[in-house]
């Protein structure tokens, strides 16, 4: 049986851990607000951009071939690409720290499955977040190339981070002639839940609805092609920014939930230990009384 002192010490330790967890919960709770605001503020840009690019798409598809390549302009970043089937890209976004419940594990499991499914292909990986970076670096698979990594950007994601990531993605995509680019991250669904998202973001899918809206009447300055050439990278970056912000908010929400659950758990343990403490104390007192009574009895006899 544990001694009183051991139990007291145990309670104290758990209580201080609980304190830490509660603090962590409060911190991430406070940060969520800001993350959510940033997310909401960034949304219109990404949505409007996508609309505009899809509107232009049919026209760009109809453009003649560029002089410096065999493909049409459209195929450079859109469908109908004559790409290398054996090369694909993968963007994995995790958090930098643990203590977030299943937040990182879910993403990494999905990434692992993806890698296994495409084990015969060359995979170009963009790792965001320390957890994902470490995990992927440990795999040491010959077909896995980590071309870009970025750690320690949460919880202060800025557009500059998205720009660097977007730049790297586009560069690799065109240079290596990737077939497609998959993105795996956690989407912020609500404060209570995150959604694992696995989607192909490049090349763009042609949207049927936009086909009807004609941009024929537009004038372009300096020219359709020039505008389109800078528009697509910007769209990709805006998208990256949105995804990073989503991931950031989801990460904070996950931390809050995990810490909430953990501190509740700690509370339960403290309660149970308190009962045990009392029991031990009472047993001790009873034993002492018995000793005294026994001693007095012995003297009487």
């Amino acid at each position, binding site marked *: 049986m544990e001694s009183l002192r051991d139990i007291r010490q145990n309670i104290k330790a758990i209580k201080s851990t609980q304190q830490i967890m509660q603090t962590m919960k409060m911190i991430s709770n406070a940060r969520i607000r800001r993350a959510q605001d*940033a997310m909401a*503020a*960034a949304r*219109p*840009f*990404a949505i*409007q*951009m996508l609309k*505009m690019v899809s509107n*232009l798409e049919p026209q760009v598809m109809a453009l003649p071939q560029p002089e410096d390549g065999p493909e049409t302009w459209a195929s450079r970043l859109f469908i109908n690409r004559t790409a290398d089937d054996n090369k694909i890209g993968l963007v994995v976004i995790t958090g930098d720290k643990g203590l977030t419940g299943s937040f990182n594990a879910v993403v990494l499991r999905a990434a692992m499955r993806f890698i296994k499914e495409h084990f015969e292909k060359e995979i170009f990986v963009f790792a965001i977040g320390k957890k994902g970076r470490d995990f992927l670096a440990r795999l040491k698979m010959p077909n896995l190339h980590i071309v870009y990594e970025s750690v320690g950007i949460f919880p202060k994601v800025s*557009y*500059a981070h*998205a720009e*660097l990531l977007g730049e790297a993605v586009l560069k690799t995509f065109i240079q290596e002639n990737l077939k497609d680019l998959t993105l795996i991250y956690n989407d912020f669904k609500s404060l209570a839940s995150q959604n694992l998202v696995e989607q192909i973001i490049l090349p763009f899918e042609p949207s049927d609805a936009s086909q009807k809206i004609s*941009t024929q*009447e*537009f*004038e*372009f*300055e*300096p020219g*359709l092609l*020039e*505008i389109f050439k*800078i*528009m697509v990278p*910007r769209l990709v*970056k*805006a998208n990256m*920014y949105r995804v990073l912000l989503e991931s950031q908010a989801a990460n904070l929400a996950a931390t809050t939930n995990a810490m909430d659950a953990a501190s509740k758990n700690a509370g339960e343990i403290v309660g149970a230990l308190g009962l045990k403490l009392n029991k031990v104390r009472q047993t001790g007192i009873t034993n002492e009384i018995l000793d005294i009574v026994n001693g007095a009895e012995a003297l009487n006899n």
Partner: protein
Amino acid sequence: MAKKLKLNLITPQKQLLTDLEVDMVVLPALLGEMGILPGHVPVLVQLTYGDLRYKKDGKDFDFAVMGGFVEVKDDVVNAFAEGADLADEIDEEAENQKIKKAKEALTKKDADIDFELAEIELKQAITRMKVKRRKMS
């Protein structure tokens, strides 16, 4: 002057103006300044670093924009800017500091990535200064 333009100004970080009714917009287009009045033909314009101005109720408002593009259609002006600062909110002192810092970084030429970033910073700070100066004069 019954007809008005609706101006939207959006940056990746934030939607700055939403359906603001204005009389005129002047854009820093890649090939020179470009004025947009109500009834303008639909156009898609690439922007450069410069001064995006709009007139509302006889008053001028200036934004320092960092490139992007503008879509004009049906008297709606959608401006997508890489960055935008209202001229009245630009702090000259701070911009001067930034210019100084960026210039220092440029003379060092360490890693190429810092170089590019500094160059952009410098360009942005100078743009902001120019817009601010013009606004004051």
